[in-house]
C-alpha cells in the first residue's frame, strides 16, 4: 500500500450572486415576507439575511447577524418540532439497549416509533435491541386528573419484568409537567427498587424551548449525568475517540465505524448512532471528541472536556473532501506516524471511486442549483457534497440552529439568553479529580490551539457564496415563494415539505431520512449521494408534468 497522499479535487462553487433573472436577491427577500402581519414581518426580516460578507483587514470575515433560536410565530407553518422530539427522537432514539418509555398520552410515543431511521446492528442475536419497540404509559383522562406517577412506576415495573433491560429512560410529554408528575423522583424510586437497572428521566415536555434544540440540550444533560463516566475501567485501544452528533441515519455510522477501524482509530462511543449504554458509560475514556452535528451535541463535548479533560474538534464526514480533511485532523491531533500513514492509505484507497463517480455525474449536475433547509448541521455539511458535483447552494437555513451554527462559535459571547433558553438547565460541571486527564496530545498542542484547532466551528455562512440567502426557521410560505421565484434544481428539506415542493415540479431530497436512501457519510456515502442527486436533478418526471394539451 502506498502512503502517498493524493490531492483532493477542488470543485467548489464560485461565489456567484444569488440573484436570478430579473430579480435581485433583495427583491426576492422582500417578496418572502410581504404578506406577513407587521409584527411577524419584523421578526422574520431578522431571520432572513443575504450572505454579504465583509473581509476585514486582518483577513477575518464579518458576517451578517441572523436571528436564530427564537420562537416561531404562532400560525406560521414551520418545519420545527418540539423538545420531546429533540430529546427522545433525536438523541436518545438511536441507543439500542435502553427501554425508552414515553410518559404521556399515546401520540408522542407513537409518532416517534421507528420514524427516524436510526439504524442499529447488535453484534449477536442475544444482544438487546429495543429500537423497534414503542413504550408508553398511554395516559388516560384519569391520569391527567389524578396524576400519572403511579402508572409510570407500574409501567417501569412491567417493562422491567418483561424485558430486564440494562436501563429505562422516561420522557415527559406536555401534560406531565403541567399536572406536576415528578418523573425524576419516580425514576429514582424505581432505580432503587429494581437494583440492576439504571432508571432516569428527561423533563422534555414539548412546550419547552422553541424547537427540538431544547430537547437536545436536555438529552445531553441526562446522558452526561446518568451514564457518562459510569465505567471505571479504562477500555483498551489506541487513539481513542468519541464521535459526537452522528445518529446513524440510513447507516452513516456504519460507514464511519468501518473507516475508523481501517485507520486504526478506536471509536469508544458514538453519540448516539448505533450506540449502547456501555458506550456512553465508557466515553469519558476517550482522548478526543469529534463533533459532527455541532448543534445537537456540543453541550456534552464541553461537559466532558470540563469534567474529564478530553478536548473536542469539529469534524465533518459529509463530503469526500471534508472526510479526508477530518480524518487528517484526527491524525494530526494524535501525531503518530503510523496512524498518519494508515489514514493516508485509507484516503488513497477510497478516493479513486469518488473521483470516478464525480466525473460520471458532473456533466449532468454541474451548474445546477440547490436549496437546503434542514436540521442544525446538515444544511451546512451537505453543501460540501453539492459542491463536489459542481452544484451551488443558493439558499440555505436551519430548522433549529442557534446563531453560532450560522456565524460560528465566535459569536457565542454575543448571544443573548432569552426566556426560552433560560429555562433549559445548564449543568454545573466540575473537574473529576480522579478521572480528569490532561489532554494527551502532541507537542504542538499549543500551536494547534492557537490556530483554533479545538472547539472551533465557523458556521454555515463562512462557507456560502456571496449574497446567498440564509433563512432561519424557513416557513412553508417562504419556501414556496422562494421556489417559485428561483426554480432551483433541487430542494432539500424534510417529509413535511417534500410533497409540496414536488408539486411544484422540483425534486425534494429529504435530509432527515435521506428519502430512505443512504448512507451518505464518508467516501462511499459521497458516491451514493452524487448518484442519487444525479438521478433526481435529471429525472424524466419533469418532462412528463405538462400534458401535451396543456
Amino acid at each position, binding site marked *: 500500500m502506498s502512503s502517498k497522499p493524493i490531492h483532493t479535487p477542488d470543485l467548489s462553487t464560485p461565489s456567484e450572486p444569488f440573484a436570478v433573472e430579473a430579480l435581485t436577491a433583495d427583491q426576492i427577500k422582500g417578496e418572502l415576507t410581504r404578506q406577513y402581519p407587521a409584527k411577524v414581518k419584523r421578526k422574520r426580516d431578522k431571520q432572513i439575511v443575504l450572505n454579504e460578507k465583509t473581509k476585514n483587514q486582518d483577513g477575518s470575515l464579518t458576517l451578517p447577524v441572523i436571528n436564530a433560536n427564537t420562537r416561531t410565530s404562532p400560525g406560521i407553518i414551520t418545519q420545527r418540532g418540539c423538545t420531546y422530539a429533540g430529546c427522545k427522537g433525536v438523541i436518545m432514539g438511536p441507543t439500542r439497549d435502553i427501554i425508552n418509555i414515553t410518559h404521556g398520552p399515546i401520540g408522542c410515543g407513537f409518532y416517534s416509533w421507528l420514524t427516524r431511521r436510526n439504524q442499529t446492528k447488535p453484534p449477536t442475536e442475544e444482544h438487546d435491541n429495543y429500537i423497534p419497540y414503542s413504550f408508553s404509559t398511554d395516559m388516560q383522562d384519569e391520569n391527567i386528573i389524578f396524576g400519572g406517577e403511579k402508572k409510570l412506576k407500574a409501567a417501569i415495573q412491567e417493562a422491567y419484568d418483561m424485558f430486564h433491560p440494562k436501563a429505562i429512560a422516561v420522557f415527559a410529554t406536555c401534560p406531565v409537567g403541567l399536572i406536576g408528575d415528578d418523573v425524576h423522583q419516580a425514576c429514582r424510586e424505581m432505580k432503587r427498587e429494581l437494583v440492576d437497572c439504571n432508571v432516569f428521566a428527561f423533563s422534555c415536555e414539548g412546550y419547552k424551548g*422553541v424547537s427540538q434544540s431544547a430537547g437536545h440540550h436536555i438529552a445531553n444533560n441526562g446522558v452526561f449525568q446518568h451514564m457518562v463516566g459510569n465505567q471505571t475501567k479504562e477500555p483498551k485501544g489506541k487513539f481513542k475517540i468519541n464521535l459526537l452528533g452522528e445518529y446513524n441515519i440510513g447507516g452513516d455510522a456504519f460507514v464511519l465505524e468501518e473507516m475508523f477501524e481501517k485507520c486504526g482509530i478506536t471509536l469508544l462511543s458514538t453519540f448516539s448512532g448505533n450506540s449502547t449504554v456501555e458506550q456512553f458509560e465508557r466515553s469519558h475514556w476517550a482522548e478526543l471528541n469529534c463533533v459532527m452535528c455541532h448543534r445537537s451535541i456540543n453541550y456534552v463535548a464541553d461537559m466532558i472536556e470540563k469534567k474529564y479533560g478530553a478536548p473536542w474538534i469539529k469534524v465533518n464526514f459529509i463530503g469526500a473532501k471534508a472526510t479526508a480533511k477530518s480524518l487528517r485532523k484526527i491524525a494530526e491531533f494524535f501525531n503518530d506516524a503510523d496512524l498518519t500513514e494508515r489514514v493516508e492509505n485509507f484516503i488513497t484507497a477510497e478516493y479513486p471511486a469518488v473521483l470516478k463517480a464525480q466525473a460520471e455525474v458532473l456533466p449532468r449536475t454541474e451548474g445546477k442549483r440547490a436549496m437546503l433547509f434542514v436540521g442544525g448541521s446538515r444544511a451546512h455539511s451537505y453543501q460540501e457534497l453539492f459542491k463536489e458535483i459542481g452544484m451551488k447552494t443558493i439558499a440555505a437555513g436551519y430548522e433549529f440552529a442557534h446563531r453560532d451554527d450560522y456565524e460560528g462559535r465566535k459569536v457565542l459571547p454575543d448571544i443573548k439568553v432569552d426566556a426560552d433558553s433560560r429555562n433549559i438547565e445548564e449543568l454545573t460541571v466540575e473537574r473529576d479529580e480522579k478521572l480528569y486527564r490532561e489532554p494527551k496530545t502532541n507537542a504542538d498542542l499549543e500551536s494547534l490551539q492557537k490556530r483554533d484547532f479545538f472547539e472551533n466551528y465557523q458556521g454555515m455562512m463562512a462557507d456560502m457564496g456571496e449574497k446567498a440567502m440564509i433563512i432561519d426557521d424557513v416557513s412553508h410560505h417562504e419556501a414556496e415563494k422562494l421556489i417559485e421565484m428561483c426554480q432551483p434544481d433541487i430542494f432539500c428539506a424534510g417529509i413535511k415539505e417534500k410533497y409540496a415542493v414536488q408539486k411544484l415540479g422540483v425534486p425534494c431530497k429529504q435530509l432527515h431520512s435521506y428519502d430512505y436512501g443512504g448512507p451518505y457519510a464518508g467516501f462511499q456515502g459521497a458516491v451514493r449521494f452524487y448518484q442519487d442527486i444525479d438521478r433526481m436533478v435529471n429525472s424524466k418526471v419533469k418532462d412528463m408534468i405538462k400534458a401535451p394539451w396543456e
Partner: protein
Amino acid sequence: MALLRHTTDDVVERQALTVNPAKTCQPIGAMYAALGINRCLPHSHGSQGCCSYHRSTLSRHYKEPAMAATSSFTEGSSVFGGQANLLQALNTIFSVYDPDVVAVHTTCLSETIGDDIPQIADAAVAKGFVPEGKCVIHCNTPSYVGSHTTGFANMTKAMVDYFSTSTSEDKIADQINIIPGWVEPADMGEIKRLVKMMSLKGITFPDTSGVLDAPLTAEYNMYPKGGATIEQLEATGDSAGTIALGPICSGPAAEALQNKCQVPQNTLPLPIGLRATDMFIQTLRKYNGGNVPAEITAERGRLVDLVSDMSQYFYGKTVALWGDPDQLVSLTQFLVDLDMRPKYIITGTPGKAFLRRIGEVLGDGVKDVIVKQGAQADMLYIHQLIKRERVDLLIGNTYGKYISRDEDIPLIRHGFPILDRIGHQYFPTAGYRGAMRLCEKILDAFLDRQDRDAPEESFELTM
C-alpha cells in the same frame, strides 16, 4: 434473525405499559378530517411538535403535503394559557395563507390548561383577525381520551355544529349527507361514485378525495380542488337524511345533525366488503325511490363471481387484524363471508361497544376468536398471541411488517398509517370494486406464498 427479538409467547397481563400501540392520539384525526373541508387550514392548538408529528405522519401515509398551522406553545403559554398564541396565529394565517376555514383542534397541552377556543375565536373576530366570510371552527381533542378516530369524529361533528343549517322543514328529497368516516381519499371517491350512480345528490363530509390525492402539475395550491365547501356543509341541514358510515368516526356528527336540523340519521358499518356495501346501497334506496341501476348490480355480481372463483383459496384461513374499530368490524364481516377465520382482532381505541359489534358479525359460526380493545390491546399483545398460535394472514397497518417478517406471515396493509407503500390512496377498498381489490390482495398473498414454498413437484402453473 428476529426484528422484534424481545417478544415472546409469554402473554403477561399488563395494567400500565403500552408496547407498540394499535392507535394514536386524537388531534391527528381532527387534522385529517379538517383537510376534508375545501380551502381549510387545520390548526393545532398546542406545542409545535404535535403539529409536526401529525403532518409528518399524514404526509408519509398519503405521500401528499399535509398543511397545518400550530399555536407554537412555549413554556410561557403553558403557564398563562394559549390565548395570545391563537390570536396571533389566526391573524397570521388569514394574512398569509388565506384559507376559507381555520379548523382548530386542541391537544393534551391546551386541554390540560383548559383554553376556551370559542371564546378566543370570538376575540379574534372582535380584533378583526378573521376576514369577512371566513370561519374559525373548532373541536376539543384531548389526546388522553379515545384515539385518533375520536379526533376524527369530533372534527366531523364540529362541521355540523358550525355549519349545518336547516332552512326549511321540508327536506330536499334526493339530497343526502354522507359521512364516510376515516377511509382513504379513494374510498371517499368510490362512495361518492356509488351515491351518484344511485341518482342522489350526496354531500360528503369530510371529503379528502381531490385533496390528499392531488395531481402533480408544477403548480402548488395549498387548497386543492377537493373537500366539502362551506356551502355544502351548510346545506347538510336541508338533506333528507344522513348516512353515517361507521358509528365511531361518523356517528356523533350524524347524531348532532339529527338533533340540530332534524335530518334523520342512518348509522351503518363502513361499506367495506359485500354485505356492508349491500347495506349502504339498501340505505341509499330509501332515498332514491328504491332503484338500483344495473351497473351497480353488475359490479356486485362481478364481486360475487370473483369470490366464487377465489373461495377455495380463502376457506378456513386464519387472520390476525388490528386497527380502527369501524374498519375492523367491516373487515371481519367480509372475512367471515369469505369463509376465512378471523382469529385475533385488536384495537387500541378504547370502547366496549367494539366487542359487541365484532361479536355480532362473527356470529355463532366462528369460534376461538380473541377480541380486545384499549390501551393494552397493542401490537405486542397480538404478536404474542400469534407466537402462541400462528395465523395465515395479517391485516393491518405498516407496523405489522415487523411481525410479518419475524413470523413469516404475509401482511395485507390496510388502515392507518401505511408508510411504506403507495396505492392505498388511489385504489379504493370500499364498495364492491374495493372488495374486489381486497380479494385480489388476499389471494395474491396466499398464492405468492404457495409459489414460494411449494416443493418442486407441486409448483402450480394454473389455479
